[in-house]
C-alpha cells in the first residue's frame, strides 16, 4: 500500500471523490441526527445521490466521449456500464422516496405530527400509560 502523501494534483484530480465523501457523510449525518421525518428523507436522498456520483465518476474515461458508436476505431469512449447501473439505482431511490413520503403522510394523519420526539413520547405513553418524565428524546 502506498504511503499517504499530500499531493495537490492528487487532491484536485479526485475532486468528484472528495465531493462524494462529503455529500455521503452529510446525508448520513442528516438522516441520523434530524428529528423531523421529512428532513430524514432529505438526508437519505443526499446519501443515495452521493453514490450516483461515485459510480458516474468511475465510468468517466479521460478524453472519452459519450458511448455512442462513431465508426472510428480510434475513438475513446467512457464506460457506459456504471451509468446504466446508476439509472437502475435512481429508480430504486425514487421508489424508496415515494414510499417513505407515503408513510410520512400516513404517520401525519394518525399521529398528527412528523416530529420523531413527539411520536416517541406518544408511543411511550402507549407502552406504559404514563407521560415520560423530562421530555421524549431517547
Amino acid at each position, binding site marked *: *500500500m502506498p504511503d499517504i502523501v499530500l499531493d495537490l494534483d492528487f487532491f484536485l484530480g479526485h475532486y468528484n471523490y472528495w465531493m462524494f465523501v462529503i455529500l*455521503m457523510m452529510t446525508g*448520513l449525518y442528516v*438522516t441520523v441526527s434530524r428529528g423531523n*421525518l421529512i428532513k*430524514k428523507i432529505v438526508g*437519505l436522498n443526499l*446519501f*443515495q445521490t452521493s*453514490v450516483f456520483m*461515485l*459510480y458516474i465518476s*468511475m465510468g468517466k474515461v479521460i478524453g472519452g466521449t459519450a458511448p455512442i458508436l462513431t465508426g472510428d476505431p480510434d475513438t475513446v469512449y467512457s464506460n457506459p456500464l*456504471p451509468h446504466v*447501473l446508476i439509472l*437502475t*439505482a435512481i429508480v*430504486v431511490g425514487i*421508489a*424508496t422516496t415515494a*414510499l*417513505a413520503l407515503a*408513510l*410520512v403522510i*400516513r*404517520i401525519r394523519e*394518525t*399521529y398528527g405530527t412528523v416530529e420523531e420526539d413527539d*411520536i416517541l413520547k406518544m*408511543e411511550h405513553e*402507549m407502552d406504559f400509560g404514563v407521560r415520560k418524565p423530562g421530555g421524549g428524546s431517547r
Partner: protein
Amino acid sequence: MLEIIEANLPALQVVVPLVAAPVCAMLGRGGRAWAFATGISFLTFAISVSLFATAYGGSPISYEMGSWAPPIGIEYRIDVLNAFVLMIVSGIAAFVMPYARLSVASEIPAERQAFFYTAFLLCLTGLLGVTITGDAFNVFVFLEISSLSTYALVASGAWRNKRALTAAYNYLIMGTVGATFFVIGIGMLYMITGTLNMADLAVRIAEHGDSRTLRMGFVFIFIGIGLKLAMFPLHLWLPNAYSFAPSAVTSFIAATATKVAVYVLLRFMFTVFGFDYAFQASTLENVLLPVAIVAMFAASLVAIFQDDLKRMLAYSSIAQIGYMLLGLAFLTHTGLVATIVHLFNHAVTKGALFMVAGCFVLSAGTSSISGLRGVGRDMPWTTAAFVAGGLSLIGLPLTVGFISKWYLVQASLELGWWPVALLIMGSSLLAIIYVWRVVEAAYLKPAPEGVTRREAPLSMLVPAWILVGLSIWFGIDATLTTTAASRAADTLIGSSQILWQE
C-alpha cells in the same frame, strides 16, 4: 414445450411471481387475489424443488439471462447452497399463503387485500432473486425489490396498530442506509475489477490482492448486509417491524428475509472474497465472533422481559441470527454446516411460532403474554404447537434446534474453543426462561374472567402444525438437511482459497 420450460426454470423461478404480482393487483377484492397468489406460491415452490433436485445431484446450473454469456451478461447460478435457500423461501411462502387468508381477512380491509397479496408476491420475487442471481449488482436490485415490498407489508399492520407505520418508517430508513452501503461496496469492487459477475469477481480479486480500496469495499458490504440481516448492534429496526406487521407477514419475513441476507453474507464472504485474506479472517474472528456471542445473550435477555409474544419472538430471532453468524465465524466446515442447517431449522421453527402468535391474535385478540393466561385450555392445539416450537427454539433433542446446536458445539470443540461451547449452552438456558414464561401463563395461570376464546381455524392451524411437524421430522432424521448443508459447505469451501482451519 416441456423442454423449453425445463431449460428456463431458473428464470421462471423469479419471473413467475414477478409477472403474477401486477395481475394479482387487478383481481379486485375478495378471495380471488388470495387464491391466485396461493397458486403462484405453490408453483414457485414446485420450481425450486425441481431446481434443488438438480443441484443436489452435484451439478451447478448456470443460466444465461437473455443468452448473454457471463461475465458480460447476468448469470443465474444455482448450486446446492442457493437451491437450498430457494427451497426454504418458496416453501415458507407456500405454507404461509393458506394460513394468510383468514389472518389477513381479520387484519386488513377487504378492498386492500389484493394489494397486500401483490406486495407479498413482489417480496417473494425479491427474496428469490437475491438468492438465485450470480451478479453482484443484481443482488442489490432484488434486495431493494424485497425490502420495499416488505416496508409496505409491515406498514399494512397499521389497521390493527398504528405503530406499524413508524416501525415501517424506521425499517425503511435503516434498510435503505444498509442497501446504499452495499452499493458503495459493490462500486469499490467494480473499480478494482471492472466486473460484476460473482465468479469473475472472485478470480479478479484474487489476482488483484489486498489493497485499501478492497478493504473499504469489504467493510461497506459487510456493514450493509449486517443491517439487512439484523446483526446485533444493527438490529434496531427488527423488533418493532416484527411485532406490528400483520401476523402472516411476520411469519413470512421472520422465516425468510434475514435468512436470505445471511446467504448473501456467506456468498460474499466465501465466493467473492474467496482468497486467503488476512483482513477478512481477522474481521470474522475479532468482530463477527464477539458480536454473535453478545447477540445470543443480550437479545435472549431482552426477550425474557418482553410482555408481547411477537416482540419476544422477534428478540429471540436476533439471538438466533447470532447462532448463524457464530457458525460462520468459526471458519470451519462444521461451522458452515451449522450455519446453513440453522437457516433451515430456524426458518421452520420461527415460521411456526409466529403463525401460532397470529392464531392467538386472531382468536384471543391479543399477543400480550399476560393476556394469554389460561389459553392452554381454550386453544389446546395452538398452545401445543407453541410448546413444540418452543422446545425446538431451546434446542431439545428430537427437534431441529438440537441439530443446529449439536453442530455448533461440535464446531467449537473441534477448534478447542470450549468456552464458546459453554456459552452456546448457556444461551439455550435463557431460551428456556422466555419460552417457559409463555407456557406458564398459558397452562398454569387461570383464565381472566368472562373471556371466551375459540380454537384457531383449521386453515391456520394446519400450516402451523405442518411447520412444527417438519421441525420434529428433521430433528429425528436430519439426513436430508445436513447432507445438503454439508454439500453446500463443500462448494463454498471449494470455491474459496481461504486456509480453512482443520
